[in-house]
C-alpha cells in the first residue's frame, strides 16, 4: 500500500519537476496555487482566469483538486451568492446537495436560486480533460493510466507530449508504454514536424496494428496529398509491413474460428462416434440428447440463481448422468431388439427424437430458454490491434479437448473401455471370453449419450436453448463421423476440426451458407473416394 502511495507521489513530483522546467514559458504559474487559494479566485473569474486556476491546480496537485476539476468538467461547481463560497453540487429534491471541496464532506443542501454555476467553455473543458488525465497518470491501476494516456493523446500538444515522455521513463506496464510510444509517434507524423523525426516515427509505427495508426499512415501514403516524397514512400512501406502482419493475424484468427467451430462439431459428433462406431447403431436421437444437456444447464441455473458459473459447472456431470440415463433407457427399451438391422434402428431412434422434442416443447414451451454465461466465459481477449479472441470460444475449445482426452482415457485405460473395444472388434469372441456384451452395449450407449449431454452443456453457451437445438446439429455430426471414419476417436477429432477450419476458410469467399454447401458436396465426393472415412476400421469386423 505505502509503496504504491510513494510511487504516486513520485509520479506527481516528476510531473511537477518537468513542468517547473517549463516554468519560464508560464508566468502565471505563481506560488499559492493550493486549493483554498484556487477556491478564493474562482468566484467571478473570467475564462482566462479559470484557465490559469486549472493550470495551477494541475501543477501543484493539492489534495481534493481532482474531485474539484472533475466537478468543474461536469458543470457541478457552484458559488453561493451570499458568501461567495464554492461548493461541489449535485441534484437533490431540495435544490442542490452541497459538498465542501476542501474537506470532501457533505455540507447540507441549498435552494438552486441561491447559487451561480461556474460556467465553462469548450476550450476549458478540453484543458480540464487533459488535466484530469494527467492526474490519472499517477494511478496505480494500469487500466486507469491507459485511459488517461488515451485521453491526453486526443488533444496532444508540446506540454502533454513532455508529460507523456516523462511517464514513459518510469512506466512499468508494457501496454501503457506501447500506447504512449505510439501516441507520441503519431504526434510526430504531423506536417510541421521535421522530416527525420517523421521518418523515425513512421519506422516506429510500422510495428503497430492499431487501426488509428493504419488510417493515419493511409492519409500520408495517399498520392494525392502534398506530403514529402520520402515520408510518403516510408508510409507506403510501413503500410505494406503492417498489411503483412494484419493478414498473418487474420489467418490466425480464421484458424481459431475454425478450431472453435470444429470443437463444436467434435463435441456433437464424438458421442455419436461411440454408438455408431462401437455398436453400428445410428442414433438419430443423439441431437435430442444434446438438447437435454442444454436444458440441464437452464434447470441448474433455476436451482442456483445468481451463480451462473457454479451452476454451469455443476450442469456438466448432471447432464452426463441425465442424458446417459435416457440413453441407457433407449438402448434397453428399443435399440437392443434391433441389433443387426441398422436401418430399422435409424427409424426407431428418429421416432424417439420426435417424442423427446415434443416433450421438451411441453415441459419448457416452444420458446427458447435464456441461459446465462458464466463470468469467465464472457468478454474478449484483445491480444493486439488485429487479433482478439472471445473467451467463450476459447473455453469451448479447451473443454472439447478435455472431454476428448477423458473419453480416450476411458476407452484405453479402464476395464469398461477394454470390454467396449473387445465387443466392437469381435462380438462373438468377446462373449466367448466371458464379457457380458449386453451390459457392455448398454454402458456404451449410455457413455455416448452422456457425452451428448455434456456437448449440450457447451452448446447452451453458444446457441439458443430450445426444442430444435438437436436437429440443427444432427446432419453435421453425422458428416463428421462419416468423414473421420467409424470407430476411431482420432478420426472424429481430426475430421471435426478440419471440417470446422475448411468451413471458416471458405466463409469469407463464399458466404456462410454457400461455404457449408461446398463442404457438404466435397464430403459427398470424398465418401466416393474413401467410403470408410479418413481412418477406416481395419480387420474382419469392418466387413460385417
Amino acid at each position: 500500500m505505502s509503496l504504491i502511495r510513494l510511487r504516486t507521489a513520485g509520479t506527481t513530483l516528476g510531473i511537477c519537476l518537468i513542468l517547473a522546467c517549463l516554468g519560464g514559458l508560464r508566468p502565471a504559474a505563481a506560488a499559492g496555487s493550493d486549493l483554498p487559494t484556487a477556491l478564493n479566485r474562482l468566484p467571478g473569474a473570467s475564462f482566462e482566469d479559470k484557465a490559469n486556476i486549472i493550470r495551477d491546480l494541475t501543477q501543484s496537485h493539492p489534495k481534493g483538486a481532482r474531485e474539484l476539476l472533475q466537478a468543474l468538467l461536469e458543470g457541478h461547481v457552484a458559488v453561493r451568492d451570499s458568501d461567495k463560497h464554492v461548493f461541489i453540487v449535485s441534484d437533490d429534491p431540495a435544490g442542490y446537495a452541497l459538498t465542501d471541496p476542501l474537506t470532501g464532506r457533505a455540507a447540507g443542501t441549498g435552494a438552486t436560486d441561491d447559487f451561480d454555476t461556474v460556467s465553462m467553455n469548450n476550450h476549458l473543458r478540453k484543458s480540464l480533460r487533459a488535466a484530469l488525465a494527467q492526474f490519472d497518470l499517477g494511478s496505480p491501476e494500469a487500466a486507469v493510466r491507459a485511459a488517461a494516456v488515451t485521453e491526453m493523446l486526443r488533444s496532444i500538444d508540446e506540454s502533454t507530449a513532455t508529460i507523456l515522455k516523462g511517464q514513459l521513463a518510469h512506466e512499468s506496464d508494457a501496454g501503457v508504454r506501447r500506447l504512449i510510444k505510439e501516441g507520441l509517434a503519431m504526434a510526430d507524423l504531423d506536417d510541421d514536424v521535421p522530416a527525420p523525426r517523421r521518418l523515425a516515427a513512421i519506422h516506429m509505427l510500422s510495428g503497430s496494428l492499431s487501426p488509428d495508426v493504419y488510417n493515419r499512415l493511409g492519409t500520408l501514403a495517399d498520392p494525392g496529398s502534398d506530403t514529402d516524397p520520402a515520408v510518403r514512400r516510408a508510409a507506403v512501406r510501413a503500410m505494406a509491413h503492417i498489411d503483412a502482419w494484419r493478414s498473418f493475424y487474420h489467418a490466425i484468427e480464421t484458424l481459431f474460428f475454425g478450431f472453435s467451430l470444429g470443437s463444436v462439431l467434435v463435441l456433437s459428433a464424438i458421442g455419436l462416434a461411440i454408438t455408431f462406431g462401437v455398436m453400428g447403431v445410428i442414433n438419430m436421437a443423439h441431437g435430442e440428447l444434446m438438447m437435454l444437456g442444454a436444458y440441464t444447464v437452464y434447470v441448474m441455473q433455476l436451482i442456483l440463481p445468481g451463480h451462473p458459473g457454479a451452476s454451469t459447472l455443476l450442469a456438466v456431470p448432471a447432464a452426463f448422468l441425465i442424458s446417459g440415463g435416457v440413453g441407457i433407457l433407449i438402448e434397453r427399451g428399443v435399440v437392443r431388439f434391433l441389433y443387426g438391422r441398422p436401418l430399422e434402428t435409424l427409424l426407431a431412434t428418429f421416432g424417439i427424437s420426435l417424442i423427446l422434442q415434443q416433450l421438451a416443447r411441453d415441459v419448457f414451451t416452444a420458446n427458447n430458454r435464456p441461459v446465462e454465461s458464466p463470468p469467465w466465459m464472457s468478454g474478449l481477449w484483445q491480444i493486439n490491434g488485429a487479433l482478439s479472441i472471445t473467451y467463450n470460444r476459447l473455453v469451448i475449445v479447451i473443454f472439447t479437448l478435455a472431454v476428448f482426452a477423458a473419453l480416450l482415457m476411458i476407452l484405453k485405460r479402464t476395464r469398461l473401455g477394454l470390454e467396449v473395444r473387445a465387443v466392437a472388434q469381435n462380438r462373438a469372441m468377446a462373449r466367448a471370453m466371458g464379457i457380458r456384451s449386453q451390459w457392455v452395449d448398454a454402458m456404451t450407449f449410455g457413455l455416448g449419450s452422456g457425452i451428448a449431454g455434456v456437448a449440450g452443456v457447451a452448446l447452451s453457451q453458444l446457441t439458443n436453448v430450445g426444442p430444435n437445438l438437436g436437429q440443427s446439429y444432427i446432419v453435421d455430426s453425422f458428416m463428421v463421423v462419416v468423414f473421420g471414419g467409424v470407430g476411431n476417436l482420432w478420426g472424429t477429432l481430426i475430421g471435426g476440426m478440419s471440417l470446422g477450419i475448411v468451413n471458416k476458410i471458405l466463409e469469407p469467399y463464399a458466404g456462410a451458407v454457400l461455404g457449408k454447401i461446398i463442404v457438404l458436396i466435397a464430403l459427398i465426393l470424398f465418401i466416393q473416394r474413401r467410403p470408410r472415412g479418413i481412418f477406416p476400421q481395419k480387420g474382419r469386423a469392418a466387413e460385417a
Partner: protein
Amino acid sequence: MRAPRLAWLDRQGRVFLLVLAVMTALVLVLNIAVPAASSLHLSTYTVGLLGKYMCYAMLAMAVDLIWGYCGILSLGHSAFFTLGGYAMGMYLMREIGSRGVYGDPVLPDFMVFLNWKTLPWYWHGFNLFWFAALMVMLVPGVLALVFGWLAFRSRVTGVYLSIITQALTYALMLAFFRNDMGFGGNNGFTDFKDILGFDLTHETTHLTLFLVTAVMLGLSYGVCRYIVSSRAGRVIRAIRDAESRARFIGFRVESYKLWAFVFSAVLAGIAGSLYVPQVGIINPSEFQPVNSIEVVIWVAVGGRGTLYGAVVGALLVNLAKTFFTSALPELWLYALGALFVLVTLFLPRGVMGLAGHFKRRHSRPAAGVA
C-alpha cells in the same frame, strides 16, 4: 411363369387398382352429385387434400421401389420430389405473366423485387408446358444419375448411403434458401394463377387435378409392378438379399441399382409436379431432411416391398396427421414418434403384412385391401 397377358399384375395388384378406381370415382361422385347440404358431401377442400395425399403416395411408392425391393434406404427422396415441384412451379410462375403484383410480363414478382433485370438462363423454356414437364423428370433423374453413379460405383451402402442422401437434401435446402439462386429464396413460388389456361382457383380445375393424380398413381403402380416382376426386378431383389452373391454370379450390381434409383427419383419428381399446383406453393422447407424420413415411415407403416403398402401407409399416416394436427396438435409428434418405434419393433412388415398374417391365420378370401 405361365404367361397370360398382364401376368405381371398379380391378384393383389388388380385389387389395388380396382379399389383405387372405385375410391376415385366415389370421391368425385360424392363431391359433384351429392348436394352440399348432405352429410355425405365431400367438399372440394377435402378432395384437394386427398389429391395431395395421393402425391405423397406416389412419393412413398418411389421410396418403396428402392428400399423395399433394392434395400437402398434413401433419406433424401423429398429432394427429388421438391425438385420436380420446383420445375412445375417455374412453369406456373411463367404462366402468371403480367398478372403479378409488379406486372412485369417476363420476370416473376420476386425477381422484380430483387431488382433483377433479365431472366436467368435456366428459366428459359419454362413458359412451355412440355418443356417444364420434361424438366420435371429430367432434373431429378439427372441428379439421381450423377449422385447414384458416384455412390454405387464406390460401393457406398447401408447407413452411409442413407446419411449422404440426407446430406444431399440438406445441401439443396440450404442452397434454395438463398435468394441469389433465382428460385425465390425462402418464400419459394406461390400465387399461381392458372395451369395450361385453366384457372387454378376454379373447382373444376382441382377436381381434374385430383383425377389426373389418381390416374398417374395407378399408372405408376402399374409401371413399378411391371418393373419388379420383370427379370430386372428379380435381380434387384437378389441384390437386396445378397449383394455380393449377385455380383459374383455376374450381374452388374451398380447398374441395376443406379437405374432403379434414377427411375425412383423420376417418379418422385412427377409426384412433386402434381403436388405443387394442388397445394399452390413450393418453398425450400420441403427439402428438410425430416420430410424425407417421414416418407420412409409411411412406407414402413404400410409395409415394405409391396408397392400398394406404401400407398396405404402414406394415406393412413397423413389422414392421422390431419386428424391429430387439428384435433390434438400437441399429441401429433408423440403419435408419430411412437409410430416409428412401434412399427419398427412390432410390425416389420407393416399394416399390409399384418393384414396378410391375419388373413392367413383365418384362411379366408381377401375382402378389400385399402
